[in-house]
């Protein structure tokens, strides 16, 4: 290693220190707590506790809701990105910026805003009452949670897909047309496959926070619909059972790792990553 590259490598030191203190050590602590009981003896009980019907149900609900949210985000984001990337005007970057502005607002604030829009005496039901229409049960439903997740995580779907689509050379699309493909064939055989890294990246970036969220379900699910995130949070903050909380976290970690591995396998060049 040359002297210069040694010096360059040193520039990473502050981050390495940060990563060790705030990422690696906490991760090991979760593993330690998850695999031990209160006396510090090794046990798999905390991990196996996922089989408890309440826990399994929460994990299943998390899985279903975050998959549904991811699907909705994908269906909303892809056509939009297609339009943005294909029209190729300079105003587009402004439009994309416009779409990600909500991301700069506090996450909690955004979710509270949805709470006050959806609740029984909220904006929608007040408006419906003014029009003498029956009130709708919107908050504390699965639909409410999905809405919250979609609103909060949609930008994470839009950006990688937009990046992947905008990078496709126009001449490649022209070449497909030139070789006889109509618009649909060009989309299915060229545009869609070339944008897959962005799609996979977007799915990861929506699915993982959806899988782990507890704030959205707490505020928009009203504590009635428990996600695995809520169960883990309660183990830490209400039951003070760090071992149980960590054990369940390890189970959740498995899902995240599977997702990341899938992404890495499909996106070897790291193209779709933000």
């Amino acid at each position: 290693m040359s002297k210069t590259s040694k010096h360059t490598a040193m520039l990473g030191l502050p981050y390495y220190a940060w990563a060790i203190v705030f990422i690696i050590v906490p991760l090991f602590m979760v593993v330690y707590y998850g695999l031990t009981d209160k006396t510090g003896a090794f046990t798999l009980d905390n991990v196996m506790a996922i089989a408890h019907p309440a826990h399994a149900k929460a994990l299943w609900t998390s899985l279903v809701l975050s998959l549904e949210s991811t699907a909705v985000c994908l269906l909303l984001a892809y056509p939009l990105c297609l339009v943005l990337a294909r029209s190729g005007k300079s105003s587009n970057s402004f439009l994309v910026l416009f779409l990600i502005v909500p991301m700069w607002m506090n996450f909690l604030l955004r979710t509270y805003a949805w709470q006050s829009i959806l609740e029984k005496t909220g904006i929608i039901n007040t408006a419906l009452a003014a029009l003498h229409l029956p009130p709708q049960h919107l908050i504390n439903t699965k639909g409410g949670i999905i809405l919250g997740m979609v609103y909060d995580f949609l930008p994470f779907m839009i950006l990688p897909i937009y990046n992947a689509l905008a990078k496709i050379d126009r001449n490649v699309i022209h070449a497909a047309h030139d070789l006889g493909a109509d618009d649909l064939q060009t989309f299915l055989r060229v545009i869609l496959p070339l944008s897959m890294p962005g799609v996979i990246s977007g799915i990861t970036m929506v699915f993982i926070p959806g899988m782990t969220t507890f704030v959205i379900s707490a505020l928009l699910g009203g504590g009635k619909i428990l996600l695995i995130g809520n169960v883990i949070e309660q183990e830490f903050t209400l039951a003070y059972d760090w071992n149980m909380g960590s054990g369940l976290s390890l189970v959740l970690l498995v899902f995240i790792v599977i997702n990341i591995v899938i992404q890495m396998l499909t996106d070897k060049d790291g193209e779709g990553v933000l």
Partner: protein
Amino acid sequence: MKDELITLKSISKSFGDKLILDDLNLTIHENEFVTLLGPSGCGKSTTLRIIGGFESPDKGSVIFEGRDITNLPPNKRQLNMVFQNYALFTHMSVAENIAFGLRIGKKPKDYIEDKIRYALKLVNLEGYERRSPSTLSGGQQQRIAIARAIVNEPKVLLLDEPLGALDLKLRQDMQYELIRLKNELGITFIYVTHDQQEALTMSDKIVVMNQGYIQQEGTPEQIYNEPENAFVADFIGDSNLFPAVMIHDRLVAIDGNHFDCVDEGFGVNTPVDIVIRPEDVEIVPPARGTVTGVVTDVIFKGVHYEMCIDVQGREWVCQSTVAHAVNEEVGIRVDPFNIQVMKKPESEDEEAAGINE
């Protein structure tokens, strides 16, 4: 005369305020290698894209085999394009790239496999079926792009500066390859380039363009030996391009010195432009020269020396296999038929439009 294949009629095209093509007329015949040659921004690529269907003209029409195809989308045209940056499908193998057009056309599997093998053989890349395009060199990618286009048996192959990104040696090899391909396939090639050497080497017909106008059409020999205006003379090859006065038929004065020439019909005492190719300037002993000058620069170019000679303050460029020393006094003479006389454009518009239109 061969049959007319493509006719461009009064094509005009603007992008925003910028006029790219102005009332362009061009006829391309079957089995011709036609090169659109000109500096960047001259409208040559736009012309090609209009033929391919990727741009639509503001005015005028494109006729293909007697049929108006102006509004036909690219996927319905019987021609294929080779793009400047190759535009290969990076998510497919070489074989899949070549098969793309055939699969869209729902050709039988055996036919497709035969075609892939045939096309790879034609471009000298046998055995590359399973490779990914991104693992190939620029020259190889270009061959795949050509193979992908020709398996569809187009009547016309459009090539947009296909050798622009290759290095010199490879470019020269590919020029021979393209000539061979054109002869084997027996189809029309329309080739866009800004490289005059490429155009002279490969073309049956060269169309020199500038500022959206056709300056001159002709065989490479005609374009090189008989440029019709100063732009063509200057753009093609090295040249001595001087203002001169036509004294009378067959006599022209350059800076007051009389030279015999072979041109007639320019009138008496008419200002003209003349072109003398550097290889046509003969260096002789001072006493035998039509004019005399002093050598100011000598550069060795491999096949010959290139010398700059100062004649009464005007610089003449000349090429000779014999070097003369700097500051040596030499005589210059030019064979009458090597002086190409051209009418002076009367206005800038006329200059842009080309004087013989």
